[in-house]
């Protein structure tokens, strides 16, 4: 069965500092990985997906199949990045398996 692990429940950084939200997964097939974000008082929404290989709001994430990781990175964090971040994996059936989530707080 697939599993997604986000080891950090809380992550605090200062504005302008680099940030990395960790995500590791286990799945025997060929997964598709996503990062979803929930800002305060907003709906859960897609931030990026590995298949797109694009940068959204300065965030990037690289799928490392050897380490089974999909860490989310941003070189210079902004206060508006403060939110709950979920890493998620989907299989061929389209069912999303979410990690526990990481609450990112960016201090001024």
């Amino acid at each position, binding site marked *: 069965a697939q599993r997604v692990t986000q080891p950090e429940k809380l992550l605090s950084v200062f504005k302008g500092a680099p940030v990395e939200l960790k995500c590791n997964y286990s799945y025997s097939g060929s997964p598709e990985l996503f990062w979803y974000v929930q800002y305060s008082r907003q709906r859960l929404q897609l931030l990026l997906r590995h298949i797109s290989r694009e940068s959204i709001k300065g965030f990037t994430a690289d799928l490392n199949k050897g380490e089974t990781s999909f860490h989310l990175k941003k070189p210079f964090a902004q206060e508006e990045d403060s939110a709950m971040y979920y890493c998620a994996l989907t299989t061929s059936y389209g*069912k999303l398996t979410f990690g526990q989530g990481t609450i990112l707080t960016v201090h001024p």
Partner: protein
Amino acid sequence: SQTIHQWPATLVQPVGSPLSLECTVEGTSNPNLYWYRQAAGRGLQLLFYSVGIGQISSEVPQNLSASRPQDRQFILSSKKLLLSDSGFYLCACSKGVRETQYFGPGTRLLVL
């Protein structure tokens, strides 16, 4: 683009009472529909998903059931609520398997 509505937004129910949460989708047809639950201190857990009218797959054995009476309507139900049913319930839709999922605003359920 698709819009997902959920109601009610919040609900307080006594143990043993029935439950009906509704999710409707606009802006797309024949979507895949999903119900998730987020319990306090835990991540999002997939409860049910549906690829078409009347087609429901359950992910976790529990006190809840789901139905899809219309293409863009997804209902989460219970005959008798338990304390452990408290949580935040999210409905989501996607255009197909492995596609991006779009989420509703959620329903916060408190069972007392």
